[in-house]
């Protein structure tokens, strides 16, 4: 009986192949039943996202199980099995455990640390459970994978820094103002991206929101969607004086906000910083504005630069996460190993205890006049001998399971002590 995972992902398979093989939920139920009916696997979970299609399974003959599973998968999706075969990877035992942990922790994702994958793995697990395809082995593997993913998220900064332009802007605002509660936002121009950035800011407590636009109706419309206030376009500099964060995204061919305008505005602010997020191309805020004291001005390229730095930061954190996962795989395998040898240890004890009890009974039957102390001494003596004899083999079994190779020792112990397999 062996655990394996086999599949293809964004790492080695092109999107054309992945989308051909991807399975939606209803089909997945059907497929799981079909695979279970084939009788080659004891347990199976199929994970299908736009970046990966993977089969996690426990089977007596993994090679055969893998081939059958993917033949059925290909038949369901109408894909030629030979085209899939080349892109398939397979991991078994410890490597399969590591792979499951890495996938759930988003270390194998296209954008490292992205949060969706854990939910997708959980869904796949729940779906397989509802099809009664999950047994004890996959159950303990997946519940542990969820715990490891949570640990990776809390103990490393893998998902901490923004990897989208709008979130990067929010993060920068926090590096300037600390908390965003009660910080006023001004939107100059209306666009999808500035709306998104404004929403993120509001989620963090920014308030109130002002919107201005050359077209008054557009300003009002956007103000409504953001529960803000529309401001006439010619009152731009008045509005600047009242806010902390400005998001600009107009289609103006020339900068709307120049150095002189901002300098005048800054005069009355008593050092309250002003943060410009300029996502317009061509830019709405003159580059010279950024050189003023207490003014921070990020254009779209600057924001991308921050995103790139954040991505590098995630890669750095991923190295720490890998080390954490290594440790967790070790722990998981050790526990699994214990689970494997415990039944043998129990039956070994039972066997020797039965022999001991039998022999003691016979001996005592031959000593009818024995004092209670003598009886006790005989009991104690026999128990001590059994424990001494058991000590070495039990220790050896535990050690071998920790070392990951309990099979041959288990067989040996069964053979030597005449235990029967359950």
């Amino acid at each position: 009986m062996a655990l394996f995972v086999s599949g293809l992902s964004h790492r080695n398979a092109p999107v054309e192949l992945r989308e051909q093989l991807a399975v939606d939920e209803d089909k997945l139920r059907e497929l799981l039943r079909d695979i279970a009916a084939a009788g080659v696997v004891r347990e199976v979970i199929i994970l299908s996202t736009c970046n990966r299609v993977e089969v996690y399974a426990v089977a007596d003959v993994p090679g055969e199980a893998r081939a059958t599973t993917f033949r059925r998968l290909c038949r369901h999706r109408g894909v030629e099995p030979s085209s899939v075969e080349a892109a398939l990877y397979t991991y078994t035992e410890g490597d399969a455990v590591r792979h499951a942990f890495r996938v759930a922790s988003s270390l194998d994702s296209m954008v490292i640390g992205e949060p969706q994958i854990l939910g997708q793995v959980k869904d796949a697990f729940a779906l397989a459970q509802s099809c009664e395809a999950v047994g004890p082995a996959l159950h303990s593997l997946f519940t542990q994978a969820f715990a490891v993913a949570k640990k990776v998220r809390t103990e490393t900064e893998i998902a901490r820094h923004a990897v989208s332009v709008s979130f990067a802007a929010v993060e920068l605002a926090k590096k300037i103002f600390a908390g965003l509660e009660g910080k006023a936002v001004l939107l100059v121009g209306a666009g999808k991206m500035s709306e998104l950035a404004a929403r993120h800011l509001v989620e963090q407590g920014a308030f109130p929101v002002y919107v201005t636009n050359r077209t008054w109706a557009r300003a009002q419309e956007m103000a409504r969607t953001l529960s803000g206030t529309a401001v006439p376009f010619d009152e731009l500099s008045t509005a600047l004086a009242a806010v902390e964060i400005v998001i600009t995204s107009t289609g103006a061919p020339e900068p709307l906000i120049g150095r002189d305008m901002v300098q005048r505005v800054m005069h009355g602010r008593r050092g309250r910083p002003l943060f410009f997020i300029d996502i317009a191309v061509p830019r709405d805020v003159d580059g010279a504005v950024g050189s003023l004291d207490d003014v921070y001005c990020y254009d779209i390229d600057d924001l991308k630069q921050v995103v790139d730095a954040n991505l590098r930061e995630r890669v750095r954190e991923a190295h720490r996460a890998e080390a954490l996962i290594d440790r967790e795989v070790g722990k998981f395998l050790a526990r699994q190993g214990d689970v494997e040898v415990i039944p043998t240890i129990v039956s070994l004890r039972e066997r020797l205890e039965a022999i001991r009890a039998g022999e003691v009974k016979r001996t005592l039957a031959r000593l009818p006049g024995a004092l209670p102390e003598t009886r006790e001494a005989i009991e104690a003596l026999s128990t001590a001998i059994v424990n001494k004899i058991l000590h070495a083999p039990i220790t050896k079994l535990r050690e071998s399971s920790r070392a990951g190779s309990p099979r041959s020792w288990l067989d040996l112990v069964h053979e030597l002590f005449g235990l029967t397999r359950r």
Partner: protein
Amino acid sequence: MHQTLLTVAIIGYVVATGLALAYLVQREELLHRLASLATLTAWVLHTVALLTLAFNLGRPPLASMPEAVSVAVWVVVVLEMWIERRSGLSVLGAFVLPVAVVFSMQSTPTRSLIGPTLSGAWLWVHIGLALVGIAALVLNFAGAVMYLLQEHQLRTKRPGTFYYSLPALATLDRLTYRTLALGFPFLTTGLILGVLWAGTAWGSVFTFDPLALSSYVAWAVYAATLAGRATGGWHGRRAAYFAIVGFAVLMLTLGAGLFLPGKHGG
């Protein structure tokens, strides 16, 4: 006895500094915990060393510059641990402890008492208050350095180690303001007591003494910064520059006390 304890405490501060700097770069929580532990351990040893010294001398260990500097380090570390705990500013140690270590190198009490004129409770109060003020201003300096580093990161728009490990500008500006507001009254009262005491003991308030003169300059710099802050307009980068200038003059003051001949020692 106290000498051995003090040496071990200083080694402890050096270790804590190394760990705090490693934490600044690596942002590994374990490093932070170890740094805090090392700081606390060293500080406890330092406390015992100072108590032993005071017991042996039969007076507060404040009568020579090296003794006073050692006490100042002790206060700096208390403030560092307190502010870090209260504000959650986990990288503070990386900026404060190096200063404490540099101070400690000068704090080995090898020199004798300043002079026979030293006595009286008012004198201990003068020295004690000035030291607490100086300690708070060390924190003020650390806050200013952090502010300028983070400001630089945000201006150059190339996020590096400091962008990730340092807190927000607003937080750092508040730290420099509060430490100044805490340290300044102590420094002021300490100086006033010193002036009054000098008037009675040396016969004149205006006796030439390098430490006294230098400390008036430092006081003036801090007074100007505080006034600027209070009336508005002075904050952020400008306030940070002034904090650094003030600290530099303060260092000159201590240097004068340690190395130049004058009424305070040498």
